[in-house]
């Protein structure tokens, strides 16, 4: 039995501990906001927070997160920080096909948790593990900087 905190709630998973975290999130808990883009940790679409740190959920077995605190986009979107980020992504025009965006929002959250006033270089570095094929990244960078300004005090 694997117990961990998922979006603020204590949960249990009784299946194979080698099951990928992404599969447990999507299939057992129905949290489909976490996307599988590549299945090998290259694209970042499956990013979640594990104890506040950005983690690709396709690369870790659920057994490894025993006792950890996991936050997905479904958890983040209910918070003031999450609402601010999502709002700024929409306002800045950062969303196109959208498949990478929940992961991008998680990467932005991970950045702002440790640096509440990032500059453009900080932002580019922070999202460099998240591939977006649509936007060319400029408007995503704008969105994250906008969130850090509009949401001053939240992080």
């Amino acid at each position, binding site marked *: 039995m694997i117990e961990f905190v998922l979006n603020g709630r204590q949960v249990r998973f009784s299946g194979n501990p080698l099951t990928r975290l992404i599969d447990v999130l999507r299939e057992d808990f129905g949290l*489909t906001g976490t996307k599988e883009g590549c299945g090998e940790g290259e694209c970042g679409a499956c990013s979640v927070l594990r104890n506040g740190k950005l983690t690709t959920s396709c690369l870790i077995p659920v057994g490894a997160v025993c006792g950890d605190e996991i936050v997905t986009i479904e958890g983040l979107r209910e918070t003031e920080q999450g609402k601010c980020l999502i709002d700024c992504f929409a306002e800045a025009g950062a969303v*196109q*096909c*959208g*498949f990478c965006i929940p992961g991008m929002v998680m990467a932005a959250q991970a950045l702002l948790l440790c640096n509440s006033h990032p500059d453009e270089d900080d932002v580019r570095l922070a999202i460099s593990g998240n*591939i977006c094929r649509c936007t*060319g990244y400029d408007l995503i960078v704008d969105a994250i900087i906008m969130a850090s300004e509009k949401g001053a005090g939240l992080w």
Partner: protein
Amino acid sequence: MVRIDDRIRRIDAIEKASGKAKYLCDISLDGMLYARMVRSTIARGRIVSINVPPLPEGYYFVTADDIPEGCANSLWMIAKDWRCFASGDVRYVGETIGLLVGPSLAVLKALEESVRIEYEEMEAAISIDDAIAVKGGPILEKDDIHCSLTSQKGGDIDQILSGAAQIVEETIETGFQEHVHLETNAAICTIEDGRYTFYISCQCPFYVRKSVAGLLGLRPEDIRVKQTTTGGAFGGKEHFPDVLAGPLLVAEHKIRKPIKLVFDREEDMIYSVKRHPSKIVLKTGLDSEGNILGSDIRVYYNCGAYLSSSYVVLQRGVFHANGVYNFPATRIRGYGMATNTFPSDAFRGFGAPQTLFAIETHLDHIAAKLKVDPVEYKRRYFLRQGDETVTEGHIVEKVVLEEMLNQVAEKSGYFRKAAEYRRGSGRGIGMSFYNHGGAFTGNGEQSIIKAHLRLVKDGDRFTILCGQTEMGQGFRTILRKIVASVLEVDMDDIVYDNPDTDLVPDSGPTAASRSTMIVGRLAEEAAMQMKERMSEEHVEIETEYKHPEGHPWDQDTFKGDAYLGYGWGCACVEVEVDKLTNEVKVVGIWSSHDIGRAIDELIVHGQVNGGIVQSLGYASMEKMENRGGHFRQTSMSDYVVPTSMDFPRQEWGLVDNPYEWGPFGAKGMGELVFNGADAAYIDALERALDVTITRIPMPVEDIEGARA
């Protein structure tokens, strides 16, 4: 109330960013089964035997034998040559042989490993040169040429070249490019209300039903296709979803339970269509002052084993082969070569990027030989309104390339930098010019597509019904904005959902940069008619595309006005190269585009940024090799697409040049923005290192070879 110039939010931004949007992979139906494809592992050969292990209860292996008698084993794309299932022989690595279906994906993967197929292998033709040499014997009836065409203008090109003071001849090659839409290809087939129904990530739901209906002897309208939120496409989901839908339909016919097929990334990478590799031979005659007398161009595209849409891709390549220039004479001969690679198909730009890259780079090389600035050289030949095109038609619209050049030159400091940075100094700046003919070629919008759109008023709600899909480009927002602006109502008063072929008229494919220009115009017209009837409770208005008079086109001879409205572009790229390691740092990107008029500047901004980065990836890092029919890059670890760290923030601009027949003056732009940054990048790189580059991609590790 929204006005066309207002800054607005995309209609789908919040639901996507918050993870609420449902893509195909997020959908589950009761009693749903999964599917895995069994594919050819060789490029060419005869199937001797297929050995399937004993299947557990509830598992199926579906093949060509499951297609009902009398029905054709073919997908009806533009041609009907692509087989739903390989049968008897295989023609490329990855060709579908069968579909394994059952309740557990893990079990299916294990079964897939244990299917044994015995082949009698034949010598395969992989490259364009292989196909020219008909290696291994003809793939088609008598040779390896799927399709060909010739366009010309001016006098006899052989005579002109024989009288030239100087001939510059070279061969320019471009590679495969993989779409890497973040959402892989995916579909579900089921039966709803007694009818075969698809949920599918795609650009063109009407293409899907037309393509697969014949497999069961049905009519297209017997099948229902519902597009699901689509996570990127770039052409990769224009015809290719048919390749998933066909086997799924045959399986559904046999099993009659919902079946879901989702490609993993490796499958999507190596078993999907790509951009056509090209080989372009250019021969240009100059007079004693270096002026161009004429050009003779041969264009070869590697189409792969099946034709799919390659003939149309090749046509567009040929029609764009003179770039944005008016040469006194030209002859362009295009050949679509059959090989034993995975079929090539649509990819943003649709055949134009290859020839545009070739002509830009060729002119850069001529200018370098003549020791004149390439931009000064190219601008002498800029097309103008009324100029004759390579299809014996004319440029219909006002061309404002000079204005765009000035805009970009001023922002980038091009002329100062071009003079200051010595060739081979490690610093370089390059500039390119390009265009993209909007919508289907010639009168195809009227003669082939016959686009329809319906606008329905129910009280204060207005519903737009058409087949155009949202795939990230913003069309669900754009079309609402057009209608809301005309009607002077709120965006929220307009309903426009993902298309369902049972509910909407066929407004043609979401492709060819036609959606805003053609279907947007139909929506604008419908809204204008609606505006006269706002006092009525229930109104239905249907509009149909009509080609403007006086612009004839002959689809048999390819003569006439190929495109009424082009998008035009100018891009500039500056690089710094470490001369020891060849590491390239792009330090500036500037662009200007003529898209008529922007319907939504923020959406256009995103398209410009994204298109340019995709083009820079194409030129630099996106290397996809094929050895013996197998793609060597199988994942996102070895096929590298640009990250946020690879290119700097772009400066961009538009010029105002409203298009007579577009909504609010808008023209197509989704593909245009892909069509030129590659050449600007290579131009800059050549100047920085004083090298001549004749192929892309040119990743850092290949630059040393280009120097030699």
